[in-house]
């Protein structure tokens, strides 16, 4: 119930702020984000922690720190990187590069981007040929058609509002039966479907009277219904703007009725039906900054950890879809956890196994090391394998935590994993 209440407020905030700019007679204000009233002061900048796939050797920590300090971020909003070394408990050690975000600049950017978004979505509408727009509207109206089946009502304090699709909007109040047992009903019409305002040239059809509107990042359909009961304040018939919003999270119904000016109303109908058209169902997110972290391990443990991680990675990619399916097929949630526990044990066993096959990964983080190695890889391999007394020793020269390459690589891999997951879920 609580969720619904909050949801309602959100819509209220949206509409209030949506309608307000129009109300500014003196040209005050401008475009502004509808969700701002609900928005937390510290909502942005948003961050996300990314853990690098490969751990870092402890001996390379100082060099990496020095390197990180000098690195210049690509994003202009990020001023610099702060390297931080963190411990989690006594056994885990991480090095993280924290972008230092210029909050003011970020906000400016967000603002301009929102405006861009708005203009972009308007531009999109403009770009769409009239024919395409016509089709969207036509389809939208079609999607809404089943609303005809019954009237939606909404009670707010004294009044009950009734929205009947393609017929009328009215508000009424029924008094409790008085002494004579008579029930008095007071009410009037806010608008009639038949009195819709014409927007484009096509007469008589819904297409000519329905418009695609945008607030912030959200698109919805609007119709303007006139022909309500005469208003003695303005001397004109009442008018109502009917808005149809896509909303997947709450049941179909009237989200809000508000008198924005005297005798001018807004009715918001929220319905999941409209979401069938992707044009009405998209939410862009504000910029997310990455905090890249890397696990730091003592040199002697490095190989073991790396091998274990690789194992884990491949396993988790393979089992992602299946594991989640399994977890959900059970009624009991605990089974999911216990299965994770089992997996952990299995992994541990496998870790031990991989220890039998020695493998060496040499990090090329150190520029000096990199220079020496250049062109001499084969020789080095031989030397090392002799030093370790193991002719089959697998040696790998790896560049880990090397700045600009890291994120892109990671991204690719994640996308792949994601695609795989999506695929398996389908």
């Amino acid at each position: 119930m609580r969720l619904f209440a909050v949801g309602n407020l959100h819509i209220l905030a949206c509409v209030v702020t949506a309608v307000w700019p129009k109300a500014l007679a003196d040209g005050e204000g401008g475009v502004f984000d509808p969700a701002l009233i609900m928005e937390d002061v510290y909502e942005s900048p948003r961050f996300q922690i990314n853990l690098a796939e490969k751990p870092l050797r402890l001996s390379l920590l100082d060099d990496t720190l020095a390197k990180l300090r000098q690195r210049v971020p690509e994003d202009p909003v990020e001023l610099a990187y702060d390297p931080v070394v963190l411990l989690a408990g006594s056994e885990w050690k991480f090095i993280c590069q924290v972008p230092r975000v210029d909050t003011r600049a970020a906000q400016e950017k967000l603002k301009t981007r929102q405006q861009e978004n708005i203009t972009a979505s308007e531009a999109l509408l403009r770009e769409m040929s009239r024919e395409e727009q016509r089709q969207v509207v036509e389809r939208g109206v079609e999607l809404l058609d089943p609303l005809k089946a019954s009237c939606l009502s909404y009670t707010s304090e004294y009044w009950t509002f009734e929205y009947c699709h393609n017929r009328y909007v009215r508000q009424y109040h029924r008094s409790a039966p008085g002494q004579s047992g008579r029930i008095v009903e007071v009410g009037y019409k806010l608008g009639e479907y038949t009195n819709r305002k014409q927007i484009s040239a096509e007469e008589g059809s819904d297409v000519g009277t329905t418009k695609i509107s945008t607030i912030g990042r959200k698109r919805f359909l609007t119709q303007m219904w006139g022909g309500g009961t005469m208003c003695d304040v303005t001397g004109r018939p009442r008018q109502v703007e009917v808005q149809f919003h896509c909303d997947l999270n709450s049941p179909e119904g009237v989200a809000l009725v508000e008198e924005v000016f005297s005798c001018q109303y807004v009715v918001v109908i929220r319905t999941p039906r409209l979401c069938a058209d992707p044009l009405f169902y998209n939410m862009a997110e504000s910029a997310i900054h990455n905090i890249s972290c890397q696990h730091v391990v003592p040199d002697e443990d490095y190989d073991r950890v790396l091998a274990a991680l690789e194992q884990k990675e491949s396993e988790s990619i393979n089992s992602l879809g299946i594991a989640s399916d399994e977890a959900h097929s059970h009624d009991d949630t605990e089974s999911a956890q216990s299965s994770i526990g089992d997996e952990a044990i299995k992994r541990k066993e496998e870790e031990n196994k991989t220890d039998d096959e020695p493998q060496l990964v040499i990090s090329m983080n150190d520029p000096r090391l990199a220079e020496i190695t250049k062109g001499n890889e084969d020789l080095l391999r031989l030397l090392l394998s002799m030093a370790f007394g193991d002719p089959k020793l697998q040696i790998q020269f790896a560049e880990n935590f090397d700045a600009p390459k890291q994120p892109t690589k990671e991204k690719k891999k994640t996308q792949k994993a994601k695609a795989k997951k999506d695929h398996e879920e389908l």
Partner: protein
Amino acid sequence: MRLAFNVLAYLLVTSVASTETKHDAADHTAITSIVGASTVAGVEFQKTDEFTNSSLSKKHQRVFVEAIETLQKYQAYINKQQKKHVRRGSPLKVARDASGLLPRSVRPYVQRIEWLASWLFGDKEKNAAAYRQKQLNEKPEKVKQAVATMKELASEGSEDAQLVLADMAMYGKYGTNIDLGSAFEHYKKLAEANGNPKAQYMLGLFYATGLGGIEQRNSMALLYNTMAAKSGYTPAEMTLAYKFLTGIGVPASCKESLVYYKSVARKGILYYLSGPPLGYHIPPYRVRLSDDNKGAYGVHTGPYSLYKVNDREGFEELLNYHLDSARKGDLRSCMNLIDLYYHGHRFASRNFTYALKYIREVISKTFTKRGDLQKGLSQGEVNSAAQAAGMYGMMYLRGEGVTVDTAAAFKWLTIAANMGHGTSLNALGVMYQHGIEVPVNNERALELFKAAAEKKHQSGQVNFAVAIMESQPQVAVTNLRNAAENGNILAHFHLGGVYSALSDTEISCRMAVSSYKYVAEYGDWLHSSIPSAYAAYERGDLDAAVLEYMRAAEMGYGVGQLNAALLLERAAKLCSYRDWDIRDSHAPLESGKDNNAMPAWSNRSCVHSVFSDQQQHERQTLAYWTRAANNNMADARAKQGDHYYYGWGVEASAEKAAAAYLISAKSDANGLAMWNLGWMYENGVGVKRDFFLAKRWYDKSIEVNEGGKLATNFSLARLFIKYLWAWVWGEDVGETPLYFAPETAAADDGKNDEDDGEKDGRRETEADDEQGGAQLRPLGHREGNEYVPEDWEHEAGAAAAEGLGVDDTAAELDENGEGSLSESVFIVVLLLAAAWMFLPFR
């Protein structure tokens, strides 16, 4: 990217799981089997504020324990002393510095007079500070020595000793002053050297809020909390859960939130079940500090206002009455007292001995010596007898006030259960289920649970549901829902499990989160900072209280957010515009600046604030009002509007203020917000000027809050004049007259009906509210600010009216539209002389 994070979350889950591996067996029986409420034997729980490890030698350990005991004893002594000196009345009320309202040229003179007055008559605040300072210097030798020992141990690398020192500086414990700068350094050292989760969590708090002049950084807050959560530190997990749920500083993600909330809830439930049979008692009700201050605004603002009469005297009167009639043998009073002492109350702590005394009394009155009901009892008396017998049995079963005696428990529970007492049926079921006193008999247990569930007993419903989950999941979930609606945490926990297993959609995730969140917030024996915050508040240590409430607020407690906002607002009132540092010390992000450089704490500009500059203080206050409002705390939305209107902590925006007021007026029926909206419509501030809507909101404001009638009528009168003015000058004022609208009953406009209808609905809710002219400070009431509120002249005008004695007569007049007009005109005539110069004809 997502995957990488998932891996981290996964590591977190497994690490949480692994730290509890030794409990896993117990876990399993406790949660997954059919056991609804059972004992989890051999599990030790650690409260988050207890000391963790000892990297010390045995000898050092002994030294540490001795020192900490001395310090804790001294703290208890200080607490007692402080409690003695605490002022009665509303601790949130402060004498405001109103000199900010005066014209600049006059201020220096007023300040001189003030200074003279404080010099002559003594300044209360200063006296208190001096007293405290004196106390600081008079620390007993033993305590000083203990502190020195702590420092020594800390320098030798004891984590616990460092933590003690850090907490000492953080909350001003053991007779010291709060020193957030040194606290930050201590925590930082601990986090860097030992990876101490508590220290990391506290650093997260510093970074999330910008406490003590630390630069507010979402990134660092997220990092430190994640690290602390990785070590399984519950408050950090809860903070992250809330952040991910609301998307503060992180991308909003229900799934991440679920992981953390689930972990917190699980720990809570494990602790709950580790108590005596049927679990520990639920933590007590959290007090809203607004209740002590007559609401967030100090007045009753509407039907959902945070206003609540909560006086100790009334309670004591009632208690004495019941004590008296119980002594005379009144059963009903006895039952009330049993309930009071068994469960405890804000003004009377839990006391099993007293509860037992009255239980025995009831039993002796209603049962024969052999345990049969006496004859000739009324139905009410029989019910009381059943309840008393059931409670008696429960107390024997759980060993409350008596030693555990399962035989006696079984006897009395059977008697009460046979009389149809729900609690007893359930408890008896648990005895059969676990073979306490009787051999295990699951069929009998199920029967009893079913009977208890039919009596609408919550734990019974849960136990019944868990037992039949496999065979009749539908019935089980219905039972769980019923119990959850009444606030049973075990029911919420099981529901959370059901929802999260249901499907992978956003909706089911949100349902699961809301269930687990409930468990995390109401089953918070181990991690809540609210009890210590309230204790600090009770003894008048408001700085420590605000820090503890801020911790709770960051964890997502609505009450924590409300209380933190209230206390911060109080501090802001105490800091006059003179106290805040004028120079902009907050030039952020200078390139050469060390990122973690901490401004010296002694440089803070206002001693009452835990922040170092006004901007951050007000910003944080706004953040907590916003979060409290999003948590459905009435009045908070209107406070948020005030912040936007005046630009406290944000860029001022009349449109946002209007939007916030509209939401507040609509969903909370907040009278102040309605008045503000009316004023905004009247003057065209933030909205298009519209006399009719202005009048409507003014009228509604009167309906909701009759206390503000005078001010509102004054506003209506002014509105009338403005309307005439605009009409004379030919502006667009609409077609019909504003005040002479036709009065037909079934009016086209329906305005009057609306008013009547509302009156009927609201009357009862505000019966006890009498605040004459309470609404005189409509748009917030914080002074001492450079900015002079545009409408402060109302206060002057209305105050003048009060001086003339208009208040009473005006309040009685208004019954219908006509009255309102004549009254308005009357007031206009009366006040015109006093107020004409203030009226802003715009």
